[in-house]
């Protein structure tokens, strides 16, 4: 899959740049799928050992988890993103009853272990080897660790990879004619009490290694050579299987024949040649003397292997051992319906235990899964002719989308109001402009819609959102006559460019420059070069006549440079024979360097438009590598393979020729590093829309991203600044901290050079309180600034932005928060609660269960598919519209409620019950809770334990707490919130909850489940108090007015019910404790600043597995600051 406007060709995770689309832990993602399912061309398929799930891998690089019911009904559950190339094989990675782990390997050497019950990536690695088959092997009494993954593929011999860490342990080497291995199987023979590994090489050589007896040698890194080998005299081996029932026969399936061998001496017993045009793909032993063989085109045949009987009577004349011969008799066959697409990947699951079935399964390139239930004793018809076994189930992703179409809303569905025909507009390209909160969609018919993204999302997701549809302000740009294939918003990449400009390219080679505010066409360029596949902009350091230029890559592999200010085409480079995969700029020499998919490089002189140089091979590589700073990797629908090869190659280069498997540095793939595009629009603000386009098709979908952290941040400081100037010290304190975190964030974004440069400069220029500067990150805050700036700068945008007051932003933030809550609330569980939520929180109900995303690390995450809710087998059948992430949520929620201290519900607020006032507070409170939970669950396990150790310190602190400390408490709470890390000043009540949540973590509760559980519990609590409030609203007096602001900001403190706080806030003016506090908070903030960096870094390093070491450092740090 590829993302529009994204640096890299493939996929999701390489997209945009590492930092931007890493699903940060505080990001919540919601997918708006649309009506069309994304393509999923199945390349690998397996059924889990518990027969409850089908796992498929696709050419697009995603894995799909399908629920398999006990009646053998299939329903797609979620898509797993993480691989950037085609998936080559899948295999079990652990003892499935203990850990439901599956390993997947991709075309480019990526390997990933997934927990298939929750879709999380457990481990990942990229090795310079492409695997085509993986077998899990574990021998509990001799082996240390979690077992081995025995891998074969496009390299010599068999690699042994540690199943837990995915590190290469050793290799099984061949002493004779080492070659690639096509297939393998593990033989557990009870008779000889030895496990063996049987493999067949591409040249058709059968080799046998001892497994169990060589475990020690392998662990000691000694070379283990094959025990036996035999030339089988056929090519393209597909499968090798050992008959465990007879412990005698060996089935070897080649593409043009299958053979049966005697395992004892590898003598050939039978050869069956395929019919014309038929290719065998695999096979399995069903029972003693009964086998099933399947073909590339989806047929399968079940044979009984009959004893010829001859051998029994005739003794061989030459005195050799008695040889029985066998011949096959066809019993049954299966076939698929019409419309098949090659090739099929099939498998067979043989389970003899009762609740399980014998299942033959197949996956097609079209994405269809078909199951056949194979009878325990397959028999032929009475007349002896083969019987056809009917298809039991067949299913595709699209079926899921059709069945649950309420859930498969698309972000632009409401456009259908404007259409007559079919009601569907196919969006062929889209772009989100965070600074304007606009979503720009180019459609198949050439129109371009510009709409408010948040409203569009609401209209798509929420009930009653349909009311919004008509009122949605939107613009329609008409100028293209054909499908709009690419969009670019230049201002998003460089703030120096006009904010009103939009560039769009269509199928017809037209590129139009628009003024999006006046909806005028400013200029039309005709490139005469086929479909405009992508629009890019030169980096900031590259200027031509003091302007940046637009680079258009077209489907005829040409590249055109457009000068927007001059309204002219500068260069049209048309010599490229292969798709353009990389564009680099040489600012000094004024060169455009174009890298093509065939690894050749073209250097164009921009001024004269002449081809300066053309290089291939090693030279080309050097040229591309040497101008690393100024580059744009270009996306194109066709290029993934190409850039993939580059990856692979770069990997190969590094591997010291494959006969050595020494310590190979894990190759940091070139493509990733080259993705640090001039990509200023990295994720910013609390809300973002990510358009995703799929490889090899024009089907796209959108992902809504909510940044919990940012939301909480934005909801928090606003009232302080506005309302309480007296407490400015406090406010600025927070701002300062906000700033420091943000700066730190900017640091982490440093890789994104272009992104941070100008912004930080601006930041310094402004007074601190005003300098939300952090522009990129706390964007909303800075909008006010921005607005002014813009007005000064850009006249044309005046109309559009009369003012960007904080109020507007606050509303936007609140709306975002509400939408997020809507998505997370378990609608439909409790009707009464639903109504209360709608009434008191003023949020809208979901139309149907929402497709949530769950990130397991920076670039591995899962997205639920429409209909995921029906996959929870335990759910009631009628509850199709319940947005409950899992059954577990209710239990968790109850547990959580029971841990809540009595009465301690929401922040008590001035109970005049004016919804308008309390609603934001409640929302803020809920969100901060969610954020906390999110952080806690995402924290590395060791850190979570660390919390415990800090609890003890806490009591000490409690004692020395001075009255003034509550402010400190606040800030610590805030810091706590922000960093998800236990500060010294934890309110007592939190402790049990923290423990509970970290305990959830151990029970492998997913973040989403935890979040929903906590949300449910909190909302229930809240609603309980609400229903009570009319009665006991009296006691809270006007005296609390002074306390009001505090309550707003300090829900937690309130909630923790500290008596001191009550009296202080009531009696003392807030300023009084300033001096003691100031001291405290200063020292404290100093601590903050040291420690503040830590959590994020921790998060970063989580993925690098260095958690433990870091953790100790970290704890030391926490402890030391507690004592001071």
């Amino acid at each position, binding site marked *: 899959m590829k993302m529009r406007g994204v640096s890299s060709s493939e996929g999701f995770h390489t997209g945009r740049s590492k930092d931007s689309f890493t699903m940060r832990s505080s990001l919540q993602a919601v997918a708006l799928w649309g009506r069309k399912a994304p393509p999923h061309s199945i390349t690998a398929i397996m059924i889990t050992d518990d027969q409850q799930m089908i796992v498929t891998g696709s050419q697009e690089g995603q894995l799909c988890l399908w629920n398999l019911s006990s009646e053998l009904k299939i329903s797609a559950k979620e898509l797993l993103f993480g691989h950037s190339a085609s998936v080559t094989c899948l295999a079990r990675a652990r003892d499935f009853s203990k850990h439901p782990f599956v390993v997947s390997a991709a075309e480019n050497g990526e390997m990933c272990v997934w927990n298939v019950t929750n879709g999380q990536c457990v481990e990942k690695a990229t090795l310079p080897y492409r695997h085509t088959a993986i077998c899990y092997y574990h021998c509990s009494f001799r082996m240390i660790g979690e077992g081995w993954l025995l891998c074969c593929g*496009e390299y010599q011999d068999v690699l042994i990879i540690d199943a837990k860490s995915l590190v290469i342990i050793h290799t099984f080497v061949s002493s004779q004619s*080492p070659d690639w291995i096509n297939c393998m199987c593990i033989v557990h023979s009870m008779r000889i009490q030895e496990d063996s590994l049987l493999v067949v090489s591409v040249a058709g050589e059968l080799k046998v290694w001892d497994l169990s007896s060589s475990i020690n040698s392998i662990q000691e890194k000694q070379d283990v050579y094959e025990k036996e080998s035999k030339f089988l005299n056929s*090519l393209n081996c597909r499968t090798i299987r050992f008959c465990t029932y007879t412990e005698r026969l060996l089935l070897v399936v080649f593409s043009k024949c299958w053979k049966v061998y005697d395992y004892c001496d590898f003598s050939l017993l039978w050869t069956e040649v395929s019919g014309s045009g038929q290719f065998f793909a695999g096979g399995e032993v069903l029972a003693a003397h009964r086998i099933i063989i399947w073909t590339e085109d989806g047929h399968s045949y079940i044979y009984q292997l009959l004893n010829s009987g001859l051998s029994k009577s005739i003794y061989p004349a030459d005195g050799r051992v008695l040889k029985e011969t066998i011949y096959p008799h066809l019993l049954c066959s299966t076939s698929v319906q019409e419309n098949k697409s*090659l090739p099929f990947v099939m498998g067979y699951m043989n389970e003899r235990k009762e609740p399980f079935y014998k299942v033959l399964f197949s996956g097609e390139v079209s994405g269809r899964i078909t199951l056949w239930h194979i009878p325990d004793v397959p028999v032929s018809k009475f007349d002896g002719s083969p019987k056809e076994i009917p298809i039991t189930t067949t299913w595709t992703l699209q079926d899921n989308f059709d069945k649950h179409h309420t859930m498969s809303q698309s972000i632009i569905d409401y456009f259908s109001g404007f259409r007559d025909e079919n009601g569907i507009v196919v969006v062929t390209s889209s772009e989100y402009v965070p600074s304007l909160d606009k979503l720009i969609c180019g459609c198949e018919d050439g129109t371009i819609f510009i709409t408010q993204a948040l409203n569009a999302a609401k209209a798509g997701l929420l009930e009653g959102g349909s009311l919004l549809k008509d009122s949605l302000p939107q613009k329609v740009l008409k100028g293209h006559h054909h499908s709009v294939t690419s969009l670019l918003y230049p201002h998003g990449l460089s703030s120096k460019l006009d904010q009103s400009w939009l560039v769009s390219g269509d199928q*017809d080679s037209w590129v139009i420059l628009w003024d999006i505010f006046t909806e005028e066409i400013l200029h039309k360029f005709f490139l005469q070069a086929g479909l405009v596949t992508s629009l890019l902009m030169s980096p900031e350091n590259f200027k031509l006549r003091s302007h940046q230029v637009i680079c258009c890559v077209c489907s*005829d592999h040409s590249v055109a440079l457009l000068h927007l200010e001059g309204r002219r085409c500068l260069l049209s480079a048309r010599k490229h*024979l292969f798709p353009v995969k990389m564009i680099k700029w040489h600012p000094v020499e004024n060169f455009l360097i174009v890298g093509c998919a065939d690894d050749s490089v073209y250097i164009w002189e921009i001024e004269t438009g002449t081809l300066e140089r053309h290089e291939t091979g090693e030279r080309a590589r050097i040229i591309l590598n040497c101008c690393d700073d100024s580059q744009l990797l270009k996306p194109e629908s066709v290029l993934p393979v190409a850039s993939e090869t580059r990856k692979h190659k770069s990997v190969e280069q590094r591997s*010291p020729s494959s006969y050595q498997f020494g310590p190979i540095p894990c190759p940091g793939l070139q493509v990733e590093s080259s993705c640090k595009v001039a990509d200023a629009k990295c994720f910013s603000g609390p809300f973002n829309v990510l358009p995703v386009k799929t490889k090899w098709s024009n089907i796209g979908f959108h992902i809504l991203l909510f940044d919990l952290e940012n939301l909480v941040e934005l909801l928090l400081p606003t009232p302080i600044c506005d309302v309480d100037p007296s407490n400015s010290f406090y406010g600025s304190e927070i701002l300062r901290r906000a700033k420091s975190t943000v700066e730190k964030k900017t640091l982490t974004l440093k890789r994104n050079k272009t992104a941070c440069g100008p912004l930080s400069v601006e930041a310094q220029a402004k007074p601190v309180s005003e300098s939300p500067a952090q522009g990129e990150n706390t964007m909303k805050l800075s909008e006010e600034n921005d607005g002014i700036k813009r007005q000064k700068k850009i006249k044309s945008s005046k109309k559009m932005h009369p003012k960007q007051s904080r109020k507007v932003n606050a509303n936007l933030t609140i709306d975002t928060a509400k939408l997020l809550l809507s998505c997370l609330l378990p609608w439909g569980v409790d009707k009464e609660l639903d109504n209360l939520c709608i009434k008191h929180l003023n949020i809208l109900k979901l139309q149907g269960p929402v497709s949530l995303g769950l990130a397991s690390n920076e670039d591995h995450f899962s997205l639920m598919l429409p209909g995921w809710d029906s996959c929870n087998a335990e759910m009631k059948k009628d509850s199709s519209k319940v947005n409950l992430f899992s059954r577990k949520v209710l239990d968790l929620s109850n547990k959580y409620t029971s841990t809540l201290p009595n009465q301690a519900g929401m922040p008590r607020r001035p109970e005049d019950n004016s919804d308008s006032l309390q609603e934001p507070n409640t929302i803020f409170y809920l969100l901060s809770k969610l954020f906390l939970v999110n952080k806690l669950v995402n924290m590395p396990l060791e850190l979570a334990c660390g919390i415990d150790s800090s609890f003890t310190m806490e009591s000490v602190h409690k004692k020395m707490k001075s009255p003034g400390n509550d402010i400190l408490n606040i800030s610590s709470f805030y810091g706590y919130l922000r960093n998800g890390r236990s500060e010294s000043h934890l309110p007592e009540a939190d402790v049990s909850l923290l423990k509970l949540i970290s305990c959830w973590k151990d029970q492998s509760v997913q973040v989403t489940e935890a979040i929903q559980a906590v949300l449910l519990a909190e909302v229930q609590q809240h609603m309980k108090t609400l229903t009570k409030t009319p009665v006991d609203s009296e006691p809270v007096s006007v005296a609390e007015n002074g306390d009001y602001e505090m309550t707003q900001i300090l829900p937690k403190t309130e909630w923790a019910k500290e008596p001191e706080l009550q009296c202080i806030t009531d009696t003392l003016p807030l300023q009084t404790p300033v001096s003691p506090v100031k001291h405290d908070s200063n020292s404290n903030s100093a601590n903050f600043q040291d420690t503040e960096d830590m959590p994020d870094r921790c998060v970063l390093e989580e993925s690098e597995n260095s958690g433990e070491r870091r953790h100790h450092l970290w704890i030391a740090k926490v402890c030391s600051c507690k004592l001071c």
Partner: protein
Amino acid sequence: MDTAPECSAPVVGAGGMPGEPEQAVSGALTTSRAGGGAGARAANRRRGLHDEVHAVLRQLQDILKEASLRFTLPGSGTEGPTKQENFILGSCGTDQVKGVLTLQGDALSQADVNLKMPRNNQLLHFAFREDKQWKLQQIQDARNHVSQAIYLLANREESYQFRTGAEVLKLMDAVMLQLTRARNRLTTPATLTLPEIAASGLTRMFAPALPSDLLVNVYISLNKLCLTVYQLHVLQPNSTKNFRPAGGAVLHSPGAMFEWGAQRLEVSHVHKVECVIPWLNDALVFFTVSLQLCQQLKDKISVFSSYWSYRPF
């Protein structure tokens, strides 16, 4: 194959002028929408594309089969031992190193290396042990990649009906991936560090064992079989030279240092001799041609948006 039967508009070829793709695209667009008369035209076009795709696939197969013949696949029809070819390796400059290598398929079966020591003009001679062969993994990998590509193409016979353009694109991508890898295996030799070369089995292949101050490496670079001989000398522990181990390289230069065993060694002389393997040259040409064919087919298909999109065509 240059004449698309149904599409009158010139196809956007590789690098060529795109002519009027507008027309082709719009045509494809309307057919995908409208029915009636356009339907018949669409059917025609579909048939045309079907024929065309299969024509290209057949052509590709022929070329690749030809390429794989060059690699003399063992077991595929050619009975008996694969034939041996002798290559005399030399360099145009000096004649200090001469090598005669015998290639049998993807393995070096014999090697004779003559080395004239620069200092004393002493002549050294090494040969492979009789019982051993040295696999040239680059050739083996390239060969295997080609047969993978052939296999991908083989099961799409004439009767097979591609349902979407995307399906063709995916097939082409898969084939191109294999071909690119095959080509890259030949064009980019492994970069090895000196200890890796020292540890490699190749040094143990010689009958009078190689003296400890010599390293030998054999690899393929493009169409050439290359032999490099490194002469080493031991760096004295008290040497004033700044010891810095050299990284990986295809060809190390004099002065490169490394640590082997307990010793620190430095490369004093490098001799590189090479010889063109004609059939490797052919194979590379075949790879390039088939890659271009694949790309042209992809371009052609991409032009038709009905093909390009996921709709069945």
